[in-house]
């Protein structure tokens, strides 16, 4: 039965209030902090402390099984929690950890789950991304980082790049070619790699969104055999396309994270327009800006509903996933709409949007920063790739 209301019972309404109250206590500063685009040390400390507090409540692992630090709560409760986090403007959890948790819950051993899920659930262990290579972005088939077995260890050699905030992380989820004779998507395995392993070095790569991505070099880095997650050589099937035919990054939270930021941004854009006058009248009374705002509202609301649809499908199917067509269409739309949103918001604000900080910066420079971060829309695969997958896997067009 069609129902878009997540909290239609007294219990769920109470849950919403509980979350809301917690946020007021745990994030009183209401500081805007996006972990992937912020390098301020004080911000990072505040951010990590916040998520440890959320973890302590058991809310990171809200829907996980109880035996693995979870609370086995419903996806609807998770949705309500997310909605409140958006509405409050709280920062989002680093997405890779959630992807690791999904992979380990699905393909890990009992021991791996016990060992790794706790740190993710409590937000005490941060995870970095180790898929992308300088010559293998969306094209995983070109992966060249190699893992060879040496006794009870795996030895990693190669280079990963664009590891967002990896320098803040303790572990990295690394995809490497474990079968040297394999080609394309076969023979790739997934490893849980402690970043303090000798032979791992990191160089910073700064991006135009004020974030730090990283180059990570593996030179005979030896990791214990039990760092392999899933079956040897099966990472393409199990991990990359593991969750209902989706790519890893979409699996749990990346898109929702970005959506949350956009919902928050829309609310702020509208408030800004209500409060800001130009030529004596609020921007909301400018007919051109009204059209621009209306168009932005349509896009953001469509994305919010698509996320709801994802939750609905996950709840209905029990598989925790969305269809290949829908999820890739959403991802493509999102990846194109994000920079469009940022551009239009900059147009609405006008020339003062250029100013990055200080008294004259508009909305504390957040429009401007949002614009810069929007060039990070390729992370997790370009819109071109998402459209191609939607067209071929979803619509059945020939490859």
């Amino acid at each position: 039965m069609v129902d878009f209301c997540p909290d239609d019972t007294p219990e769920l309404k109470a849950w919403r209030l509980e979350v809301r109250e917690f946020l007021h206590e745990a994030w009183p500063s209401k500081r805007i902090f996006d972990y992937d685009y912020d390098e301020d040390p004080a911000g990072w400390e505040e951010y990590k402390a916040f998520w440890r507090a959320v973890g302590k409540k058991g809310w990171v692992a809200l829907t996980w099984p109880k035996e693995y630090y979870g609370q086995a709560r419903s996806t609807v409760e998770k949705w309500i929690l997310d909605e409140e986090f958006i509405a409050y403007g709280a920062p989002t959890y680093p997405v890779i950890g959630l992807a690791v948790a999904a992979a380990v819950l699905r393909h890990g051993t009992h021991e791996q789950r016990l060992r790794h899920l706790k740190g993710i659930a409590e937000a005490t262990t941060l995870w970095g991304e180790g898929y992308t290579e300088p010559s293998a972005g969306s094209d995983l088939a070109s992966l060249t980082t190699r893992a060879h077995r040496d006794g009870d260890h795996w030895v990693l050699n190669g280079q990963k790049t664009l590891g967002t905030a990896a320098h803040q992380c303790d572990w990295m989820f690394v995809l490497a070619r474990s079968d040297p004779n394999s080609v394309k998507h076969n023979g790739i395995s997934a490893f849980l790699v402690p970043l303090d392993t000798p032979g791992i070095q990191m160089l910073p790569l700064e991006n135009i969104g004020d974030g730090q991505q990283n180059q990570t070099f593996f030179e005979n880095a030896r990791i214990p055999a039990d760092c392999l997650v899933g079956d040897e050589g099966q990472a393409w099937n199990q991990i990359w396309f593991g969750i209902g035919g989706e790519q890893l990054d979409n699996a749990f939270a990346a898109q929702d994270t970005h959506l949350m930021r956009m919902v928050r941004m829309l609310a702020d854009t509208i408030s800004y327009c209500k409060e800001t006058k130009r030529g004596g009248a609020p921007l909301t009374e400018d007919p051109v800006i009204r059209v621009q705002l209306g168009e932005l509202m349509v896009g953001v609301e469509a994305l919010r509903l698509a996320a709801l649809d994802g939750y609905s499908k996950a709840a209905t199917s029990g598989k925790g996933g969305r269809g290949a067509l829908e999820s890739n269409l959403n991802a493509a739309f999102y990846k194109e709409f994000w920079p469009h949103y940022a551009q239009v918001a900059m147009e609405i604000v006008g020339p003062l949007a250029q100013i990055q900080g200080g008294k004259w910066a508009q909305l504390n420079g957040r429009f401007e920063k949002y614009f810069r971060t929007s060039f990070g829309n390729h992370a997790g695969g370009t819109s071109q790739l998402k459209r191609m997958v939607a067209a071929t896997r979803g619509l059945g067009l020939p490859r």
Partner: protein
Amino acid sequence: MAIDLNFNEEQQLICNTAKEFFAKRCPPELARKYENSTEDFPRELWKEIADLGWLGMTFPVEYDGLGCSFLDTYGIYVEAGRSLAPVPLLEAIGIGAALVARMGSADQKQALLPAIAAGDKLVTLAIMEPDGSYGANGVTLTAVKQGDGFVLDGTKLLVACAGTADRLIVAARTGGAGEDGVTLFLVDPKAAGVSIERTKNIGGYPLYAVTLAKVAVSAADVLGAVGKAWPATEAVMMQAAVLQSAMVVGAGERVLEIAVGYAKERVQFGQPIGRHQAVQYLCTDVAIALRNTSLLTLHAAWKIDSGQPFLREAALAKASASKASAKMTFAAHEVHAGIGFMIDYDLQLYTMRGKHWEYNLGDARHHYEIAVAQAAA
């Protein structure tokens, strides 16, 4: 129950029945036949639909209705859109009858609703004027009090089925400005002083120019309260805008099918054109516009169904549907190039009707205005 985007079993059944019915009874040739024809629509088909119980579905049971919900009828509109069924479901039921049901006196309802449900009578709205404005400000046709009744003077355009309708609901200005002072009148299109002329139009729909010259209307034919009709009129039109959006969704599904089917079959430069990334882009353009509109429309329908405020949601849905209507057909034409340009090819039927739907009950800009007014309030 919470967060579920699927119809319940009865609703799913109605969708399936409607899909089958329209597929059988409304092939594209029927839509072609009634394009700018002299007959407004096939009356016998209308009767069949009445017999299925779909016309009075949402009417109260005391007026021969089934008391069904908004979402219960949703699927019928989706399927009417998919099949381009040349019947005035939206105009006569979604708007005309809905206005009567919402604003009519017991007498008016008794006189009209059972007959509408039976397919015997037809009531449509006359609101747009030569100015081309949507909204309350566009209503300038004058209604001057005379004795117990009123005298109406002015012109209405794009009035659906005026050649067949038993009554037109004429929106007129009895005073005031803006939302204040709008009154609805039930006018017999055959009454003295009313002249109607069918205007050829891009969608081929039975749309009329209606001129009222000193048309006398009695107090009994005022629909709702004098001068206070706007809020209810707007609410009905916004609900109808959601139904119009549902029609766009149904049509969009068919347009996507046509485009994808052609992209798979048509070979150029030695391979199916669907292998070209440009064609994949065009097909996903259709799919993205369709998906977004579908989600927004279902959400708005649910808001209406559950008795919540829905203006913002309906406005977002129709804004998206208006844009999508143009975007989806354009992208599908780009997939087809030459063949889509031919009258014989069915794609163009969607393009031409889609243009009407884009405007009908407010274009994207009109609905952006409403959504922003809600959000910035």
